[in-house]
């Protein structure tokens, strides 16, 4: 379990998060919110990229894996080398790195690409490679920032299935602005808007919110009502 209490954070004078409280449980939790709501800022605070101005995060001994929205690997690196190195950076013992990288690549179904150079991967493969990098050191918590952005429909399905399967064994937090992502892979969902968490519940609870159903899916209707409020 991951407990976030009263997180206030921002950049310079701009306050983006205005006191976020959230309790996260094992499984896949979606973090929804419009652009500029503070999703990436909250994830940055969670993984230590940004120091909060106030509040606390109780993580215990949990280890984090993080896949940012925009990331790169050196194009000339072989995929297995890149994942091994990321595992090492994240604390895996040197002699275990290659095996850990192979396990992570197997988990994202990229075993056959292990020897390929990163620059030869397609967009979907690259995204899965990023998830493998986040997984290689076997974190307790995997944090993914907009993992399906820029993928075509087929690639998006594959990544969603992958994230859902990872969520069966660990806590996964997925930031997204795509409601389909949430409905297909998340057990729970939090909605962030105006720097505050305005909803924390199951996907079914979000769907149960009222809204004009003739044009929208249940989840869209519930989500829009929350934002309007």
């Amino acid at each position: 379990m991951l407990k976030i209490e009263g997180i206030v954070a921002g950049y310079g004078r701009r306050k983006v998060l205005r006191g976020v409280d959230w309790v996260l449980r094992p499984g896949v939790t979606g973090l929804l919110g419009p652009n500029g709501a503070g999703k990436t800022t909250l994830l940055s605070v969670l993984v230590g990229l940004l120091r909060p101005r106030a509040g606390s995060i109780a993580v215990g001994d949990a280890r984090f894996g993080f896949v940012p929205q925009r990331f790169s690997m050196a194009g000339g690196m072989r995929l297995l080398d890149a994942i091994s190195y990321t595992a090492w950076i994240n604390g895996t013992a040197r002699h275990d790195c290659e095996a850990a990288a192979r396990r992570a690549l197997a988990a994202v179904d990229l075993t056959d690409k292990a020897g390929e150079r990163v620059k030869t991967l397609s967009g979907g493969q690259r995204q899965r490679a990023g998830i493998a990098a986040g997984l290689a050191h076997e974190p307790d918590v995997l944090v993914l920032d907009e993992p399906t952005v820029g993928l075509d429909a087929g690639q998006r399905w594959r990544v969603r299935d992958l994230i859902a399967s990872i969520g069966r064994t660990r806590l996964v937090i997925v930031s997204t602005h795509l409601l389909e992502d949430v409905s297909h892979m998340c057990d729970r969902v939090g909605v962030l808007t105006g720097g505050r968490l305005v909803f924390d519940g199951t996907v079914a609870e979000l769907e149960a919110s009222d809204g004009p159903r003739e044009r929208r899916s249940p989840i869209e209707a519930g989500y829009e009502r929350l934002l309007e409020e």
Partner: protein
Amino acid sequence: MRRTWWPLGPASVVVPAGAIVVAVLAMTWRMLSWPYPLWVQTSAQFHQQFTWAGMIAASWACWYATVMHAKNRIWFRPNAPRLGAPAVVLHLTTLVGWFVGTYLVALLPLTLATLGGIGAPDPLAMLSGVLAMVAATALGYALGAVVPSVVMVPLVAIGCYALLVGGSAAAEELAAVAPVFDLEPELGQRESLPLLVFRIALFVIVTVAAVVLAGRAATRNQSWRAAVDAAACLALPAALVTVALIRPPAVFVADGQPAASCTEKRGIRYCVHVENRARLGELVRSIDTVIARFGTKPENIDQVWDQSLTFRPIDVERARGVELAWLEPDGTIESAVAVMAAGVYSCKGGTKPAGLITLDIDNYLTTGVPAGTLEGMSVSEVQRWLARFQDQLHSCTLTPNQLPRAETR
């Protein structure tokens, strides 16, 4: 396991390491066949060969850091357990191991060729060269970590080149800082202890500062913090460099008063540095050929000394009538005995008839063939003329009717 040692693949270190070997071997190849290798020169090659090797090491290390420390890398997470110092140490261990290791391997043939050579190795001079390579690699890497952009790579290369140019242009002033000297030491000299101690300390401090700087830069995602770190880490090396520029230590010092090995022939005393005693006979043969062509002992030459004997002050009386000879390690012996015996310097360029003939005499003493104004004279005629007029020759006071053609007519 190897994947973490060189995450960019073996070629990322083997290729520049190979370039270092090629550069060093190309620059030292001719020295391998020298019959009289000098340890003092071979020791100096450990820093002199920095010219290309240092530039390759620093530039490549910079590129390596720009690739590994770009802030959008998937492995960039400031609180990751090994992102800062451990990653920097891992990369630099690999880079320094290969670059400095192959640098030493490339210098091995020269070192082996010098075994049994003249003098003794200078371990501190060798160490200063090795540390200069380490410092260049670490500094190039740190600059790449601070500004992880490929733009830094040519800037680092230009910086290395500027250091070389500066070392040549201001040899005395920058010798404590620039790894490559403008001049190389010779037998009878050595690199001064204060200079070596200073350089070793400077290169160690630069290395430590670069490692600390790279470690901090690797975990920073704000460029202003990296700039502050850079200023803090490079303050001490910069202060040391400033001190060296204000009060530069002596570059070379003479060995203790060297013992000489001497002999005499045709009234001329020949002396060589005791370490060159095996070449005394060679020196005598080389100079005596000129003296034999002159016919008698030139009155302005009493002694011929190995130049290695002259790095310390010499009593004027002892040095009367001395000409120097350079006993080069490649087996050649250079001296100005023919020039001096011909009186070339007395007439400063030879614009008068008395001056012109000195050039012809110099040519005759060097080749043994009378030519120019001496054309048509036999060797014995030239020698008789020299015996009669050498005073005027050496004081540039020959009159037209004393010239050889007038004499033979």
